[in-house]
């Protein structure tokens, strides 16, 4: 082969290749670089030939991995050379050496443009190629229209036009404005008629990128794409040179199917039919052949066809055909096909409901977990993770645990995390879950993150039956030689909390347990030592009567670490010493930790984060995102058996008193389930569990046991603070600012009475008027009274918001302080998809909504969940309106629904002692902070019913505070962003002889709150709500202008 006559270059290459070692190579390269540098310096004497030669040398040196910090100017200047050979070198080397942000590129934009719009075809090609490879935003702005012209031109040859297509693709990626969607879609349709396969391939690449961003504009391309695909698979009209191992351009086939994956299901029956026929042909017509390349090419097409079939949600028959094919693939010898089989099976899990068929291949998939190839093992792990459910969890997790010891380091952490998640998600009994995690820590302690063992602690703490088992197991594992530190932490914590439950077993005296833990004490890190210190003091104080010997030893340790350099350890030692000195009255402080609120698994979040990557958007990902963005699309409620309730959608930690209905995973809970067992959870919190007086996040809502003379609540609070680091994740209300405010206001647990407000009230609550306003276009009528549903939701946290023959909207809500979370469950009751679904919240000025997008389409019989976060800015009686609309076939349906986000949702009843109440009541002198009004036309009801109503509105009733038994007094805290926590005091004086009137007094530190709450309570009490909500005697200081601006007010104005 001629070396292009550049002897200098070949000599240099041979020299470099002959170098014996890296140093020799470097010195040869340095010498050459110095040479080039000098030659470039006196640029005058340089011929074009020489310049070209040196530039090539630079590229070669660059390829070897050396830095190039000079000579860029010379390279770029070659682009401006008049002759082809120099220009070519200039363009090619520039695109290798410079990246798109290099400043020198700006210098040549003009030259490049002249080449592109000039009439020399070869120059056009060079320029387009370079721009296509390294063109950035600058190029995009100045060249896009020229490149478009070339692509559309009739006079340019295919070779130029295909380069223009790809160049435009690059420019579009760098700057989406490079292609104007409106005008361009018709041109794309036109371009798809192209006969030259080379150009068509390039155009198809461009189309893939375009539809990835905005499919709607390019609907008209779909029929063309189907036709092209059909033509290709039939092999019609394809020039010989475009067949690859006998297959008509496999690349074009793949790209065309890629385009189609961006469009939702195709409606036109003819096109759909012909597409399915084509796909069927591909599925059936692909055989395994000897020739590797032919095999690869045909399977590339086949896998793309599988992806398309999945996407189109084809008939069950075709899908099972696909799964059958994949099942065959994951068992073949050829590793590429096996890899792809596993990968596509995983994708299939995401898209369609074929779990059961896939489960048949479980054994084969588990075999792949032991494949010598890490790529295949990873795929298999992913697939197992995806296909796991209650039925096969035990088996799969066992396999993962076995594999863990053999797995390479790269995959272990992921493996451990996945095993942990599966065992917690699908555990049928929690003993098994604890076993799994302990094994996990034993086998791969380094790869078990803290989140995993925190989670175990949460479960064990919350489940009394589990505690004995977990403690016993922890002891077993800890008693082994060479235990991982994570195991020491977990076992130490569990034994500290629960070892006293084992006391009757042989070999489990507090002293034995102490010995086992102390055995590891010397070798663990400071942080773990601190944790173990707490375990020691708990073991000591739990043992009654105390073993003097044990006491001696424990105290000795505390003394030893009293002057530890670590502040945490030191502090604990000093406190525990003091605590032990105080004697048995302190036992309560060391009682077990209270239960954790149910919360979302941090592990799931972590797994989600890990899966996120940076790749460009793609059909599959887009699809997954569409589902994720609005939480889960649950096609049918999964039975997760006795699995622990962990998939809580609520972000905010939930208070116990609200825990029961809303915290269960949605899958186990139909949307419209009435709130039933609001109390059960609370009553399960036994006195023992909460005997640390200050730890519960909201003492008032807890049934606190009446403590003896009280070692002053503040002292206990302090202690709780000190204990906090020990509580693995301290109870959430703990550090939250609102609870601090709260505790400063409430008088502490001494009040003794249960502040629990019954969640449920049977009391009729004729609340607000019409809640639904049908637009004139609505033909579909709700089946039931929207008003009743709304009224029910005012006092409940879950229920139906709206229902018509096609759709049901359920609502579930959680409220905590100033924020709440609403989850809308949009359920399609129909056998066809509902399209154009919109659910937009029009928030009134006093509420802030954070919503996630609602999917455009709800598949048949599916339910979509849309979470909304609500923040209360200030008090107001207005509520938000949900504009909901969808299309059923061609019939548009729309409804405007009031959302039950009223002032009472941000209230929390408080228990206040009589003295305190009176003091505060007196402190509120009068208007505008304290308002009083005689309310007439009150719906007559017995006092007890009114009390129930108050309780269900979270206003609460403080019994026994008012000596007059015809009066109701209550204290409640209103949370809003502007006023934070505001204590509101309410007094209702009724007249036993006339139940239709009463005197209402409301007071708080915030005048807006006082006024709004007053009006709200009036609304609730008065039989028929007044036609206008704005009362004439509004105190002037209240921002009345906001009254009528909210959408709900506007709606009111309309009727």
């Amino acid at each position, binding site marked *: *082969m001629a070396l*292009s*006559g550049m002897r200098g270059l*070949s000599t240099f290459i041979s020299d470099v*290749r002959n170098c014996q070692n890296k140093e020799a190579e470097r010195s040869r390269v340095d010498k050459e670089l110095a040479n080039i540098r000098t030659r470039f310096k006196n640029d005058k004497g340089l011929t074009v030939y020489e310049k070209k030669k040196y530039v*090539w040398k630079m*590229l*070669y040196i660059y390829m070897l991995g050396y830095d190039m910090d000079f000579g860029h100017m010379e390279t770029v200047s070659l682009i401006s050379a008049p002759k*082809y*050979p120099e220009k*070519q070198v200039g363009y*090619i080397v520039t*695109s290798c050496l410079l990246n798109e942000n290099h400043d020198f590129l700006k210098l040549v934009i003009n030259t490049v443009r002249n080449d592109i719009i000039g009439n020399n075809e*070869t120059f056009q090609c060079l320029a387009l*190629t370079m721009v*296509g*490879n390294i063109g950035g935003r600058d190029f995009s702005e100045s060249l896009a229209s020229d490149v478009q012209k070339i692509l559309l031109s009739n006079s340019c040859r295919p*070779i130029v036009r*295909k*380069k223009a297509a*790809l*160049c435009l*693709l*690059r420019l579009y*990626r760098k700057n989406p404005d490079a292609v104007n969607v409106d005008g361009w879609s018709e041109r794309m349709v036109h371009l798809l008629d192209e006969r030259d*396969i*080379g150009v068509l*391939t*390039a155009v198809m690449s461009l189309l893939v990128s375009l539809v990835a961003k905005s499919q709607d504009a390019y609907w008209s391309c779909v029929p063309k794409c189907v036709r092209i695909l059909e033509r290709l698979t039939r092999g019609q009209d394809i*020039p010989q*040179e*475009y067949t*690859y191992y006998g297959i008509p351009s*496999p*690349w*074009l086939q*793949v790209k065309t199917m*890629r385009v189609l994956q961006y469009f939702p299901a195709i409606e036109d029956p003819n096109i759909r039919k012909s597409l399915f026929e084509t796909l069927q042909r591909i599925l059936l017509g692909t055989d395994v052949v000897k020739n590797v*390349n032919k095999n*690869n*090419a045909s399977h*590339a097409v086949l*896998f*793309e066809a599988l992806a398309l079939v999945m996407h189109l949600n084809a008939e069950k028959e075709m899908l099972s055909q696909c799964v059958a094919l994949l099942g065959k693939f994951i068992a073949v010898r050829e*590793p*590429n096909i096996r*890899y*792809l089989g596993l990968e596509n099976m995983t994708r299939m899990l995401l898209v369609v409901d074929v779990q059961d068929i896939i489960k048949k291949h479980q054994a084969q998939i588990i075999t792949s977990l032991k494949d*010598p*190839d890490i*790529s*295949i093992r*990873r795929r298999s792990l992913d697939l197992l993770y995806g296909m796991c459910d209650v039925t096969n969890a035990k088996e799969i997790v066992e396999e993962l645990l076995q594999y863990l010891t053999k797995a390479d380091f790269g995959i272990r952490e992921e493996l451990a995390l996945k095993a942990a998640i599966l065992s917690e998600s699908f555990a049928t009994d929690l003993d098994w879950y604890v076993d799994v995690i302990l094994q996990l820590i034993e086998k791969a302690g380094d790869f078990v993150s803290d989140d995993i063992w925190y989670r175990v602690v949460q479960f064990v703490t919350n489940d009394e039956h589990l505690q004995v088992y977990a403690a016993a197991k922890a002891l077993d594992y800890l008693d082994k030689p060479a235990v991982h530190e994570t195991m020491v932490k977990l076992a130490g914590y569990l034994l500290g909390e629960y070892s006293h439950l084992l006391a009757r077993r042989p070999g489990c005296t507090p002293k034995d347990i102490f010995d086992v833990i102390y055995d590891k004490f010397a070798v663990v890190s400071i942080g773990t030592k601190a944790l173990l210190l707490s375990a020691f003091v708990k073991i000591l104080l739990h043992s009654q009567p105390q073993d003097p010997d044990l006491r001696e030893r424990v105290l000795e340790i505390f003394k030893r670490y009293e002057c530890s350099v670590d502040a945490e350890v030191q502090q604990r030692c000093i406190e525990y010493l003091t605590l032990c000195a105080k004697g048995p009255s302190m036992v309560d402080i060391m009682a077990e930790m209270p239960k954790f609120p149910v919360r979302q698994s941090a592990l799931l979040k972590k797994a989600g984060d890990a899966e996120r*990557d940076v*790749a*460009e958007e*793609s*059909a*599959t*990902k887009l699809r997954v995102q569409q589902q994720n963005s609005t939480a889960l699309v649950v096609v049918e409620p999964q039975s997760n058996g006795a699995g622990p309730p962990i998939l809580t959608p609520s972000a905010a930690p939930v208070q116990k008193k609200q825990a029961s209905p809303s915290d269960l995973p949605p899958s186990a809970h139909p949307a419209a389930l009435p709130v039933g067992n609001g109390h059960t959870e609370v009553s399960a919190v036994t006195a023992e569990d909460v005997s640390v007086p200050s730890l519960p996040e909201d003492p008032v809502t807890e049934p606190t046991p009446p403590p003896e003379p009280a070692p002053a609540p503040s002292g206990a609070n302090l202690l709780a603070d000190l204990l906090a680091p020990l509580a693995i994740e301290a109870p959430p209300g703990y550090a939250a600012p609102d609870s601090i405010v709260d505790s400063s206001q409430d008088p502490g647990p001494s009040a003794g009475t249960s502040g629990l407000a019954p969640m449920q009230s049977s009391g009729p609550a004729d609340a607000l008027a019409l809640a639904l306003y049908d637009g004139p276009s609505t033909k579909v009528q709700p089946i039931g009274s929207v008003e009743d549903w709304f009224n029910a939701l005012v006092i409940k946290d879950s229920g139906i918001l709206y229902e018509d023959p096609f759709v049901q909207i359920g609502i579930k809500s959680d409220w905590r302080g100033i924020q709440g979370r609403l989850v809308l469950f949009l359920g399609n009751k129909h056998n066809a998809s509902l399209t154009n679904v919109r659910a937009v919240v029009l928030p009134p000025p006093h509420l802030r909504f954070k919503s996630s997008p609602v999917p455009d389409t709800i598949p048949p019989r599916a339910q979509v969940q849309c979470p909304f976060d609500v923040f209360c800015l200030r008090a107001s009686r207005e509520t938000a309106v949900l504009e909901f609309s969808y299309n059923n076939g061609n019939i548009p349906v729309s409804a405007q629904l009031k959302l039950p986000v009223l002032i009472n949702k941000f209230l929390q009843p408080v228990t206040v002692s009589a003295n305190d109440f009176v003091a505060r009541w007196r402190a509120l002198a009068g208007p505008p902070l304290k308002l009083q009004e005689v309310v007439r036309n009150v719906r007559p009801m017995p006092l007890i019913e009114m009390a129930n109503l108050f309780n269900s509105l979270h206003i609460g009733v403080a019994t026994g505070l008012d000596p007059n038994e015809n009066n109701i007094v209550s204290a409640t805290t209103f949370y809003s962003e502007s006023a934070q926590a505001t204590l509101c005091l309410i007094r209702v004086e009724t007249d036993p002889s006339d139940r239709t009137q009463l005197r209402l007094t409301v007071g708080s530190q915030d005048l807006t709150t006082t006024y709004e709450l007053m009006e709200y309570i009036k609304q609730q009490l008065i039989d028929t709500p007044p036609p206008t909500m704005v009362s004439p005697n509004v105190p002037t200081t209240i921002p009345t202008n906001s009254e009528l601006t909210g959408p709900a007010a506007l709606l009111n104005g309309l009727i």
Partner: protein
Amino acid sequence: MILSRGPKLCNFLEWRGLKVVYKRYASLYFCMCVDADDNELETLEIIHHFVEILDRYFGNVCELDLIFNFHKAYYILDEVLIAGELQETSKKSVARVIAAQDTLIEHAKEQSNSLSNIIAQATK
């Protein structure tokens, strides 16, 4: 990473959320890095397609051909891929373009040779 993999394994490797598709020809490895959900086999055959074109151009291509003519390899690559996307799937078409480029260069060389001859003669 690729070099440590045995011959019987698959041609795909997951890497930082992307995929490396590679193929080995004797002592030469060709690698492409693609998005996680690009079609792997398609990419694999792009590599082979490129190699076949190289083969046709150099006539049984070997490592030395590519080392000493790395610039030719670049020319050809530019005809096969632009912006990371396949540009031409016809080997013939690529061959034609490259041949045309070569003629252009030869032509230019002849011209400059004749030019330098003229200058040389004139300066004699």
